[in-house]
């Protein structure tokens, strides 16, 4: 696995439902073929209605998350209000572009609920926003970067299982299946998974068992 995006491994996926949204991630943190820990955090709760998932280089995952916390906190203090998910999605894009010539090696996915409607956005490492699809993926078990291989990908699983207007329970099941099937086939992702389902009321977290390899 060459390439800076594959160095630490890891996969993330997000999907919209009916007035709900879900994000799933694996738990592996490795250095090429060696697994270091199986409890590495890749999904961060930025606000009650905003989740940020980050795939890619682990050090940039942590630093970029800290940078988003910094900017979000200052926004809250100066403007004296919470940030809307769509605003946060734009903040992520501009923050990535700020490092246009020395980028963060991350594949972010922003998931949120704005006035009950799900907001889902994904980016390349320099801030190109894609927010029109009903599901988005990032990381090594997706279809990015691995141009030399045709890997079974989470995208394929999503396409098969996705239906519009899924309920939170159905969404959780679909996303869990998609993540597990993608990660089990990917050497660089796995060692457990987490599905975060966000509704107006709360965020539930479910732990998934994947192949432990």
């Amino acid at each position: 696995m060459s390439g800076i995006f594959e160095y630490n491994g890891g996969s993330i996926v997000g999907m919209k439902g009916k007035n709900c949204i879900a994000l799933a991630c694996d738990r592996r943190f490795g250095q090429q073929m060696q697994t270091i820990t199986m409890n590495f955090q890749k999904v961060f709760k930025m606000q009650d209605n905003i989740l940020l998932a980050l795939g890619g280089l682990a050090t940039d995952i942590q630093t970029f998350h800290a940078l988003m916390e910094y900017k979000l906190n200052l926004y809250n203090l100066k403007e004296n209000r919470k940030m809307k998910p769509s605003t946060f999605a734009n903040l992520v894009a501009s923050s990535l572009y700020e490092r246009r010539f020395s980028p963060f090696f991350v594949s972010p996915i922003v998931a949120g609920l704005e006035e009950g409607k799900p907001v889902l956005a994904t980016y390349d490492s320099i801030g190109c926003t894609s927010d029109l699809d009903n599901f988005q993926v990032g990381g090594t078990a997706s279809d990015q970067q691995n141009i030399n291989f045709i890997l079974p990908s989470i995208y394929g699983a999503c396409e098969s299982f996705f239906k519009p207007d899924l309920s939170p329970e159905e969404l959780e099941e679909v996303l869990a299946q998609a993540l597990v099937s993608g990660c089990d086939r990917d050497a660089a992702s796995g060692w457990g998974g987490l599905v975060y389902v966000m509704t107006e009321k709360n965020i539930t977290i479910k732990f998934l068992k994947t192949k432990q390899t």
Partner: protein
Amino acid sequence: MSRRYDQKTTTFTPDGRLKQVEYALEAINKTGSAIGVLTQEGMILCTEKQEVSHLLEQQKHSEKIYELDKHIFSVVSGLAADANQLIDYAREAAQKYRLVYQENIPLEQLIIRICDIKQYYTQHGGQRPYGTAFLFAGYDKDNGFQLFSTDPSGNYAGWKATAIGQNNLAANSFLKQEYKEDLTLDQGLNVAIKALVKTMDTSSPQPSKIEIVLISKADKNVKSKTLTEAEVLALLKANGFNNEAQQE
């Protein structure tokens, strides 16, 4: 004293004073006062707003009491525009610290950063000093609850209870007598409001002119509560003021 020594901030007078700093203090002592009280259970910050006209739009957030980070609050006395600059700077400094250390900035560290800026303008550039004095109240896990005051010279001091701004001498002597180390938050609140009313000309202040914030700890988090106008009125009445109150 000789007027020759009061134009440039960067000049001492023959008797060792910085006139511009003293003049800044004069400006601050013309504005509404601010009182801070530290108790075992938490802290009280209260202040008097100046002109409260019917025509002023109600602001959603406080005019004089600012949150600098989740664990630090401050009250301003003096020039509001000067204060805004320093508040913005303080907020950035607190977040920068958090970015580097992933921890709350210790209160004294934040104050030092602000005071260094204030001091700069007493020594360089020929620009006037900031016409603001702050009271900072906050919590960090090494030192617990702390109360600090700062002045235009860049000096700061830690207090158990203090007053700045208009008539602060009267309030400070009241606090010296009435403050006890073992006050509860409620008792501290009564002491603070009495001290604040001491700085005013009237014993029936309008509740709309008074802002009060209570800072305490719940589990690991610092929480703050801003009193509503009704709660301020109830507090005033409970302490013997406003017995024929006019509501704004």
